[in-house]
């Protein structure tokens, strides 16, 4: 186990190094425009550009420039220039909103994914099963940038049941917090519910053929107990891994678009606004911190998976 963890951590550091080099090259080396000009923003004064050139050391050799960038990143000295704001402050400010959105959506999609998957597995081939198959392929085809406007139009503008987005901190008013987040939660969760129900279903159908399920039935357990205690529980291990990866991908993907449409004051909206204005420092910061977070999460999930299911780490070392 220790060897497995060490190897995963080394792999993680290598990936993070590679990502930071790619970002460095793309931001500083590939563009034909002077990178200081790009960092400064569209309406920057020549003086500001000159200052940035000195600050980032664009006359230094490339490896030194890379180190300067990484130093700024790790000491939290990355700033956006018009107006001068520290990027990491803005990111930390946005984290509660982003986590409210993503964790809430994750709870919804896990709950309904498991429930629907369970129901369609115990009646495989029935009408619910076939309906869910259709719903899940439609679900993965509906992009958030269609679902969100439709939901806002129907439930916020026409029926006026829910507010059309924006974020109210939980500490301020828990009721309003939830009310404002319901539409965004549904938007984010909708894609995954169909998919998760399919995964749970097919895992459960696989597990149902295992010997220990037959044993459980043979010793006289009721059908419900067999299904929940033995089948469902054992088909959850792959779902946990999947969930860990999806959660990271959602934070760094769909959540950005969702925050932008619903005007939720999180990290994603900060990034989206920076993209709109072509402000590079915030984007650089969000991309790198975001990658670090997601890759770290994925590594943790990998380790947790190996801990839960010894076949994974045994299989790995046997193949070497």
């Amino acid at each position: 186990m220790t060897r497995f963890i060490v190897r995963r951590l080394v792999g993680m550091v290598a990936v993070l190094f590679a990502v930071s080099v790619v970002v460095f090259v793309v931001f500083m080396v590939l563009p034909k425009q002077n990178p200081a000009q790009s960092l400064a923003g569209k309406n920057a004064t020549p003086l500001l550009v000159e200052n940035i050139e000195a600050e980032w050391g664009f006359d230094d050799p490339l490896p030194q420039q890379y180190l300067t960038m990484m130093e700024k990143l790790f000491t939290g000295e990355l700033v956006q220039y018009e107006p001068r704001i520290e990027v990491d402050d803005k990111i930390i400010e946005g984290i509660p909103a982003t986590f409210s959105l993503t964790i809430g959506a994750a709870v919804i999609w896990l709950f309904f994914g498991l429930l629907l998957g369970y129901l369609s597995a115990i009646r495989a081939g029935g009408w619910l099963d076939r309906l869910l198959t259709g719903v899940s392929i439609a679900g993965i085809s509906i992009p958030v940038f269609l679902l969100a406007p439709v939901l806002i139009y129907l439930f916020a503008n026409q029926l006026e049941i829910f507010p059309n987005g924006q974020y109210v901190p939980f500490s301020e008013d828990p009721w309003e917090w939830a009310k404002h987040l319901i539409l965004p939660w549904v938007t984010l969760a909708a894609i995954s519910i169909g998919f998760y129900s399919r995964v749970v279903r097919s895992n459960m159908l696989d597990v149902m053929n295992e010997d220990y399920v037959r044993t459980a039935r043979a010793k006289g357990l009721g059908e419900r107990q067999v299904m929940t205690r033995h089948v469902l529980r054992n088909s959850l291990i792959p779902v946990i891994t999947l969930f860990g990866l999806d959660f990271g991908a959602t934070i760094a993907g769909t959540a950005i678009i969702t925050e932008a449409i619903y005007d939720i004051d999180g990290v994603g909206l900060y990034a989206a606004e920076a993209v709109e204005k072509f402000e590079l420092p915030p984007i650089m910061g969000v991309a790198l911190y975001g990658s670090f977070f997601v890759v770290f999460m994925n590594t943790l999930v990998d380790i947790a998976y190996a801990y839960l299911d010894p076949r994974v780490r045994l299989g790995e070392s046997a193949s070497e």
Partner: protein
Amino acid sequence: MPNEPSAERGPWSLALRRFFRNRLAVAFLGVFVLIVLFVLAAPLWAEHVAETGPNEEHIVEQITVDGEKLDVVSVEGKPIGPQWFAADGKFFLGADGRLGRDEMVRLMYGGRISLLVAISAALISTMLAVVLGLLAGYFRGWTDTVIARVLDAIWSLPVFLIALSIGVALATGGFKLGPLELSGGSLIIPIGIISIFTVPYIARPIRGQVLALSEKEFVEAAVAQGAGPLRVMFGEILPNLASTVIVFFTLMIANAMIFEAGLSFLGAGVQPPNSSWGAMITTGVELLKVQPLLAILPGAMIMLTVLSLNIIGDALRDALDPRGKQRLDAALQFEAQAGATGTQGGAALS
């Protein structure tokens, strides 16, 4: 091909027959063809019906509907709604916002860019994936280790976020590498970014197939006859990958389209004066209260295209591999793995 079920018909025509027996798939193939015809007709509609281009502004103009003069953009900045054929097809779907551009014309031209970017990116991504998969699966050893590790690394990244940042950096500053120079607005930038980041989703399954195929007798036979590695990889193994490649290519177009729309929606994909369906949603969302169609129409076009491609791809898989037990779940899995703007965690399943 061993065990050919019919003497007269080859496996391809059999597959084709199986595909056309799937009514849902044929219906959605029809939908996809209609979408392609729709975007191809853009210049015809623009010139002969709407008499305007996708970027022509009509801020202070008026059109005549039933003998009445109407502002294209009202004094308060509200764009005119759908006119259908009331103004001889002008502003068929209304105007797109304060600039008063013809929404129908923009939808057609935007679709061209969306499809162009998606198909080119899927093509490049599939070709790269085939080459990498063949190299890794055939040579094994350190070649395989290096390729597999790089693919795994890309897989573990928050691809959309990194693509977003690269898109902005290159759109701001342009691109210069040796003799290759691109301006920030070039379509090659989003195409390149999408194709590189989607390679692992095809390359990993292909590598697995090549690993299995290169153990087969026909490969041994080819090697024994003195065929070199290139000949074996592209002449012997590649034809056996054809059905996988066709299916993945179809699904990848759908996926690239969502990826592009996500980037363009935020402003890191297709840059003005070009527009795509994703970029059009941005303007639409701002006017959601006034004119909800402006956000919903391009979104619905994306969904329709993606849904057709997913269903076609799934039916192709059934038709090409009738014994496959995975059927729909395979397409779902792929989508989920590849969903750059959505779920990405299919990794655990493969």
